[in-house]
C-alpha cells in the first residue's frame, strides 16, 4: 500500500457519469435518444409561488358550505355549441397508438365522471374513446392520420395542433413507434415501420393561411364546434395574438414540461419555455386584444396538484389540461411494476420509453398481454378520483382567498419564493413589493 495521501477521485460536473453514458450510447448507436414525457430538468414552476390567503383585509369563504364554483365554458367566441365543463381541468391530447385502447377508454370514463373533456391524438378517433367520452376534443394534426369528416362532425370540439410544449417546432423521425396492425390501419402506414412526423401542416403555413383552414373546418361542421388552437410554449405573446387573429375560440398553451409520446431528448430538454413563464405573456396578448375570457386560455405542461391548477387560473388561465398526471393516475410508473421496470433498465418514475410499447403498466402499449393489465373501469375511477381531488384542492385555495368562483383568483393573490419565479410570473417576491423587470429594476 502506498501511504502517500491521495486526491479524492473527482467526477467532472461537466462530464458527469450521466453525460458520459449518453456519449457512449450515441457513439454506439449513431442516433439521438428518443423518449416520451416532458422536460425532466428542474425549471421554475408553480411550486415557487404561494397564495396570500385572506386575513384582516380580505374575508375567506367557509369551506364546504359557502359555494366556490368551478364551471367553465370553452368556445364562446364563434361556435354555436360551446363546451360546458364542470371543472376547469381537461384531459390533454394523447393518441391511440401511443396509448392502448383500454387506456383511452379509461381516460374517457374518468373525464366523463368528473364532468370534463378528453382529447384524441395523432392517430384518429377510436370507438373506445368516443363511446366513453361525454365531451371529446378531436385533434387536427400535421399527419392527419385517420382524419375524416364523420369523426370531425361527431367531435365536440376541434383542436388544431400547431405545436406542443415538449417540442415546439418539432417533427422529424420517431424510431421504433409501435405501429401494430390496428395502428397501421388507422394511420394508413405499413406495419412495424419507424414513423416520420411532419413539423408543419401539409396544407397551410402561418396564421394567414390558418384563418382560411379554420373557415373550412367551420363550414364542414356548420359553425357548431369550438375551434381550439394548441401551441407549444415558444413566443407566447405573439403566438397567442396570432391565434386570436386566425380565429381561435380557445387557445391551448403547452409549456416545456408538457409531455409527448416520443421525441428527441435534446428537443424536450432544450426547446421551449417553462409553463410558469408562458402564462403572463399569453394573458397580456389576450388583454391587449380585448379578448381575455372571450377567447379562453387552457394551460398545460406539468400540472400535478390543485395548487398548480389554482395558480395557473390566478395567473389568468381559464382552465388547465393534464396529460402525464392523468397517466400516473391510471397507473403509469406504478412501483408495483418495479421489477419489470428494472428488467427494462429503468426504475419506477423514470420509465419514459413509451414509444417502445413495452409499458409494464399496460398503458402506453399495443401488446395484448400488457394491455390486459389495465382495467378501464377501475382506472377510469382512479382518474375521476384524482380529478375530484384537484378540484377540491383548487377550491380550498380559492375559498381561502375569498373567491366564490375559482376564476376570480388573480395574480395579486400570489407572491413568489424566488426571484426567477417572481420575474416569470410577474408577481412580487414574498415580503416585498418587488416584481423583477417592473418599476425600473
Amino acid at each position, binding site marked *: 500500500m502506498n501511504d502517500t495521501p491521495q486526491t479524492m477521485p473527482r467526477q467532472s460536473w461537466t462530464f458527469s457519469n450521466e453525460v458520459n453514458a449518453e456519449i457512449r450510447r450515441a457513439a454506439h448507436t449513431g442516433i439521438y435518444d428518443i423518449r416520451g414525457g416532458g422536460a425532466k430538468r428542474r425549471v421554475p414552476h408553480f411550486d415557487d409561488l404561494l397564495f396570500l390567503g385572506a386575513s384582516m383585509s380580505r374575508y375567506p369563504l367557509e369551506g364546504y358550505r359557502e359555494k366556490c364554483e368551478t364551471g367553465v365554458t370553452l368556445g364562446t367566441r364563434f361556435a354555436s355549441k360551446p363546451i360546458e365543463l364542470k371543472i376547469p381541468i381537461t384531459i390533454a391530447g394523447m393518441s391511440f397508438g401511443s396509448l392502448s385502447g383500454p387506456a383511452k377508454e379509461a381516460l374517457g370514463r374518468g373525464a366523463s365522471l368528473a364532468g370534463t373533456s378528453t382529447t384524441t391524438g395523432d392517430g384518429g378517433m377510436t370507438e373506445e374513446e368516443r363511446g366513453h367520452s361525454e365531451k371529446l376534443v378531436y385533434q387536427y394534426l400535421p399527419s392527419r392520420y385517420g382524419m375524416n369528416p364523420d369523426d370531425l362532425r361527431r367531435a365536440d370540439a376541434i383542436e388544431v395542433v400547431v405545436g406542443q410544449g415538449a417540442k415546439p417546432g418539432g417533427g422529424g423521425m420517431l424510431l421504433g413507434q409501435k405501429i401494430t396492425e390496428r395502428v397501421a390501419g388507422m394511420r394508413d402506414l405499413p406495419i412495424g415501420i419507424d414513423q416520420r412526423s411532419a413539423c*408543419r401542416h401539409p396544407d397551410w*403555413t*402561418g*396564421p*394567414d*393561411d390558418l*384563418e*382560411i383552414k379554420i373557415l373550412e373546418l367551420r363550414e364542414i361542421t356548420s359553425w357548431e364546434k369550438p375551434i381550439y388552437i394548441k401551441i407549444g410554449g415558444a*413566443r407566447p405573446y*405573439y403566438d397567442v*395574438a*396570432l391565434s386570436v*387573429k386566425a380565429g381561435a375560440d380557445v387557445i391551448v398553451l403547452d409549456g416545456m414540461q408538457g409531455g409527448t409520446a416520443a421525441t428527441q431528448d435534446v428537443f424536450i430538454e432544450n426547446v421551449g419555455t417553462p409553463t410558469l413563464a408562458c402564462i403572463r405573456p399569453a394573458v397580456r396578448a389576450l388583454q391587449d386584444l380585448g379578448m381575455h375570457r372571450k377567447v379562453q386560455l387552457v394551460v398545460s405542461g406539468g400540472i400535478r396538484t390543485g395548487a398548480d391548477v389554482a395558480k395557473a387560473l390566478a395567473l389568468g388561465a381559464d382552465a388547465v389540461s393534464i396529460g402525464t398526471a392523468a397517466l400516473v393516475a391510471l397507473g403509469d410508473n406504478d412501483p408495483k411494476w418495479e421489477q419489470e421496470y428494472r428488467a427494462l433498465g429503468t426504475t419506477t418514475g423514470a420509465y419514459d420509453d413509451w414509444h417502445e410499447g413495452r409499458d409494464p403498466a399496460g398503458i402506453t402499449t399495443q401488446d395484448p398481454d400488457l394491455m390486459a393489465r389495465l382495467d378501464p373501469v377501475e382506472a377510469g375511477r382512479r382518474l375521476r378520483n384524482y380529478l375530484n381531488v384537484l378540484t377540491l384542492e383548487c377550491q380550498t385555495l380559492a375559498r381561502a382567498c375569498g373567491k366564490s368562483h375559482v376564476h376570480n383568483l388573480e395574480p395579486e393573490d400570489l407572491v413568489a419564493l424566488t426571484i426567477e419565479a417572481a420575474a416569470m410570473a410577474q408577481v412580487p417576491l414574498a415580503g416585498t413589493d418587488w416584481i423583477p423587470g417592473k418599476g425600473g429594476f
Partner: protein
Amino acid sequence: MCGIVGLFLKKEDLRPRLGDMLADMLITMSDRGPDSAGIAIYGDQGDGHKITVQSDTPDTAFDGLDTALGDRLGAPVTMKTNDTHAVLTVPAEALEATGAFLEARGLRIMGVGEAMEIYKETGLPRDVATRFGLRAMGGSHGIGHTRMATESAVTTLGAHPFSTDADQCLVHNGSLSNHNTMRRVLAQKGFAPKTENDTEVAACYISSRIAEGANLGEALSGTLEDLDGFFTFVMGTKTGFGVVRDPIACKPAVMAETDDYVAFGSEYRAFAGLPGIDSARVWEPEPATVYFWER
C-alpha cells in the same frame, strides 16, 4: 403574415384606373392582414423628388410646412397633403437638407423617389384605402400590402411597404428567421433598419446590395443566399417590379398576365375583379426564381 398585391400596367390608357384596380385587390386581401395596410404608387414624375412624410398630428405638423421648408432651402417646394401623409416635391440637390429638416420636425419619412409615393396606416385595408383616396390615384404600377403582424408592433412604421432607397419599395409575406443577425451586419454597413420589422431588414439588404453595385436581379437573387426563413417578396422600382419566393415556397403566390397588365396576388381572389382575368395567363412563381418586369 400577410396579403400582397401588385399591379404593373403595360398600357398607358389604364393609368388613371390603377388606384381603383389596386384598391379592390387590396381590400380582397383583408382577411390575410387586418392590422394595417399600405401602398406604394408609382405615379407621374414631376420636376423634382417626392418625399412622402407621415405625422400622427397632421393638422399642426403640415400647417405651413411647405413654406418653412422652402424658406430653409431657398428653393421652390410643393406639398400635397393626404390625411396623415404629405408628399413634398423638392429639387434633387436639396434632398439631403430636406431629410434633415423633416426629421428635426419629428416627421416620419415613408419614402423618397421621383415617381413613388407611399401611404400606410394601421387599420382595416378598406379604411386605409378610403382615407387616402386610393381609388382616385393613377400611375404606372403599384404594390399593396395587408399586414397580420407577427413579432413586431402594429404601428404605422411597422406597416409595409418599406422603402429604404429612392423609388424602391418592398413588401413581404412570410417570416424571416435570421433577420436579427442580418440587422447587425447591415448596421455595420450603414444600412441600419429603423424598426424591429423583419421585412425592413430585407429591404435594407436589397438596397445595400444595389448600393454596392448589384442590379436588382442580383440583389433579389442574393436574398435566396443570405436571408433565411419563409418569404415571398414583391419589390417595386421606378420602372418595374420584381418577385422572388424562398426555396421552400409554401406561402401562397399567384401571378396573372394579359396584354394590359401583370398582376401579383397572395391569392387568386385578388384578381377576381381585374379586366380580362378569365383569359389571362395565370401561374404560380417557382421557388428560388427571380421574376422581373420592366417598362
